[in-house]
């Protein structure tokens, strides 16, 4: 029965190539855009190299100081001291890493200028992140204690600065702003879209110019707290909240009128949303706008498909009339149309999959994002397939339902 329906569907598709083209164009392009978008979002928010523990990590990235009426506000990353005191001390956490936001620098070699992103981290940084070491090893507590001038660099910087053509550079010196650092490790770089792990050079926090001795609350450091298991995260959050709530008023009240302190340990996505939507109304607005855009984006092609389908099915009134006259029940006709639509949606889905592979391949190889690793992974593909089905049903059920209820006489007359 099913194969029969599919055979009919195939014949119908071939009968009017132009309409088939319109339908397939709509389905496959909508799905392509959707898949590329999902894969991009997955790249931004998912758990990927080198932040392999992101699904069990909490990010402490912003210290917000406001007055009680929330009219004036000052916010930014924290100081090393603040994080050491309130985050490193978390008992329920597995590991706590502190790192600076990236800052910029330049290095010069043979009259050539290399732009650098630099980052100061502690040793736990290398445990929390899953960097792959191509050469050497990360710095350890000894290096920190001795304030060694050592650095871990990325493979891209190694190739630019040393031009060794693949020979080991561990132990050699790199000069940055007149200070010589000994390279002790080379890692595979992280894409710039992962701001907390991205850098060209990593220094221990005791290296010069790191400003880790700064006092106060606002500085340039952020902390990542990992849990042993994802289910421990609420416990860590509440412990951190209570740590923050115990900070004495005198310590918070340092600037004229900023008397309220807000620091949160958030999961990556929430932390991202919180940076631009701080209270619940703003967050509500954000989600409304996003769902409206998605609705428009998915809705337009869907309405379009329904439109085309309604018109096309009306064309086949006589076929339906004949089938009904020979005793086919409405349900059978309804199923036929639904299957036909799902069939064409899957063809469109296959096109979309091929197209997305191509686009993602182009993005990855274009160098548009360094170290880009966009993939069509299983969840992304499953979502797209689900969307395929919703599309098929959405654009198939309405016209099919209308047709299946057509009276035999009317159907045959047309």
């Amino acid at each position, binding site marked *: 029965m099913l194969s029969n329906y599919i055979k009919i569907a195939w014949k119908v598709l071939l009968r009017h190539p*132009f*309409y088939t083209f*319109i339908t397939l*164009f*709509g389905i496959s*392009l*909508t799905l392509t*855009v959707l898949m590329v978008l999902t894969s991009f979002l997955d790249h931004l928010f998912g758990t990927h190299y080198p932040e392999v523990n992101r699904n069990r990590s909490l990010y402490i990235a912003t210290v917000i100081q406001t007055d009680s009426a929330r009219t004036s506000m000052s916010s930014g990353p924290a100081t090393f001291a603040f994080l050491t005191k309130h985050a490193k001390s978390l008992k329920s956490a597995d590991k706590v890493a502190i790192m600076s936001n990236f*800052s*910029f*620098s*330049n290095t*010069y070699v043979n*009259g*050539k*200028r290399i732009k650098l992103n630099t980052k100061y981290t502690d040793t736990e940084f290398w445990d929390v992140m899953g960097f792959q070491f191509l050469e050497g090893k990360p710095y350890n507590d000894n290096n920190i204690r001795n304030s060694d001038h050592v650095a871990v660099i990325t493979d891209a910087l190694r190739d630019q600065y040393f031009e060794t053509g693949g020979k080991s550079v561990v132990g050699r010196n790199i000069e940055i*702003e*007149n200070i010589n650092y000994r390279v002790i490790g080379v890692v595979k770089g992280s894409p710039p879209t992962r701001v907390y792990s991205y850098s060209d050079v990593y220094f221990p926090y005791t290296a*010069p*110019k790191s*400003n880790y*001795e*700064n006092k106060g609350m606002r500085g340039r450091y952020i902390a990542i707290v990992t849990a042993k298991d994802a289910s421990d995260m609420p416990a860590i959050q509440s412990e951190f909240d209570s740590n923050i709530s115990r900070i004495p008023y005198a310590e918070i009240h340092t600037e004229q009128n900023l008397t309220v302190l807000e620091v949160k340990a958030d999961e990556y996505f929430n932390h991202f949303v919180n940076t631009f939507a701080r209270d619940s109304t703003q967050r509500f607005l954000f989600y409304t706008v996003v769902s409206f855009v998605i609705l*428009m*984006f998915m*809705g*337009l*092609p869907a*309405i*379009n*498909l*329904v*439109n*085309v389908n*309604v*018109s*096309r099915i*009306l*064309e086949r009134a006589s076929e339906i009339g004949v089938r009904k006259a020979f005793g086919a029940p409405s349900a059978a006709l309804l199923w036929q149309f639904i299957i036909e639509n799902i069939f064409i949606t899957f063809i469109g889905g296959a096109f979309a999959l091929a197209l997305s592979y191509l686009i993602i391949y182009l993005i990855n190889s274009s160098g548009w994002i360094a170290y880009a690793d966009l993939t069509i992974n299983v969840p992304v593909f499953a979502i797209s397939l689900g969307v395929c089905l919703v599309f098929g049903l959405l654009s198939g059920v309405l016209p099919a339902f209308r047709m299946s209820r057509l009276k035999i006489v009317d159907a045959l007359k047309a």
Partner: protein
Amino acid sequence: MLRHLFKLIWNKKGTHSLLIIEILASFLVLFGVLSLIVFNVRNFLQPIGFEYEQVWNVDLASNQDTVEVNRKLTTVMQRIRSYKEVETATRMSSNTPFSANQIGNSVTYNKVTAGGDFYYTDQDFNKVLDLPLLKGRWYRDGDRVAKFIPIVINKKMEDKLFLDETSLNKVIKIDDKSSYKVVGVVDNFKAKGEFMSDNPALFEMIAKDDGWNSNVLIKTKRGTDANFEAKLVKDIAMMLPGWGIEVSYLKESRLNRHNLTLVPVIIFLIISGFLLTNVALGLFGVLNLNISRRKNEIGLRRAMGATEGKVTIQFLGEIWVIATFSLIIGLLFAVQFPLMNVFDLDSEIYITSIFASIAVIYIIVTLCAWLPSKQASRIHPALALHEE
């Protein structure tokens, strides 16, 4: 004729409802994207107001060093000015042109308050950026009298703050101890690049003992390359041990700022372009089917003496009426934006994009209906009626 068309469509509003929703949705999408584009294009058309080609930005960070920061900065400035590759140099606050930093503040004069961007610079700022003055002059060291801090404002700030008065030599009180004195007015200053709107701006002379504002803008002579840059960084690093030094070219920072604006616009353009193609193809398909189903009606009209043109106009008229229905509904939503001043944008932007989207919708609809109606009008009455 028009009333007749309206009646025809109204009677079949059930079958046309999907078409109406589709056109309505396309209108809303277009309106959103065009608002974004009109906003950026309008900004782009205003000149940026200064020269940046040869200018470098040296960002000095004192880090843990807190001893005599200002004296050290002054020495470094003297050294920088002494290089033969350097034309002029100026100190500036961290909100250098094309940077992500912003310093916002407001001033009040005669009960009028105007907010704007504050820039802290020294006497050579206008020479480094070739910033032409509309009136007055740029501030000099001698302008700093006990009570007055010399400032230069831009045209936008002057219009907002002083309304119809002239601004030169006016004194604005900040607090009981000090006041600003306006010594000059510049025209546009779009520090964040071409796509930024021309905000009110105020340039304040850096205080003598200031150690905070440690960016240096350097205008280099033509043909200066990375070798000089390496030497410069090395020299500064010797003079300021422990300080962070970062050199960037304004030319490059400008491109970064542009990409921040252009990338989202391009993504929106691609997506909406694809949506509209989709809608256009769909419309074309639906109209094609609808018209071919009405062959006998066309045949009858042709037999009764209607010309080809008249038949074409009828079908075009029908789709125009449908489009008008959707646009009226869409306008109900769209006019809220200029009326309620959503996002604080100029209502002109919204109105322009409303008209532009209406025009685009009519064009798309006409193009999609043109071919099928043309084909329909060529149907021979004898053939059409015979089929019936």
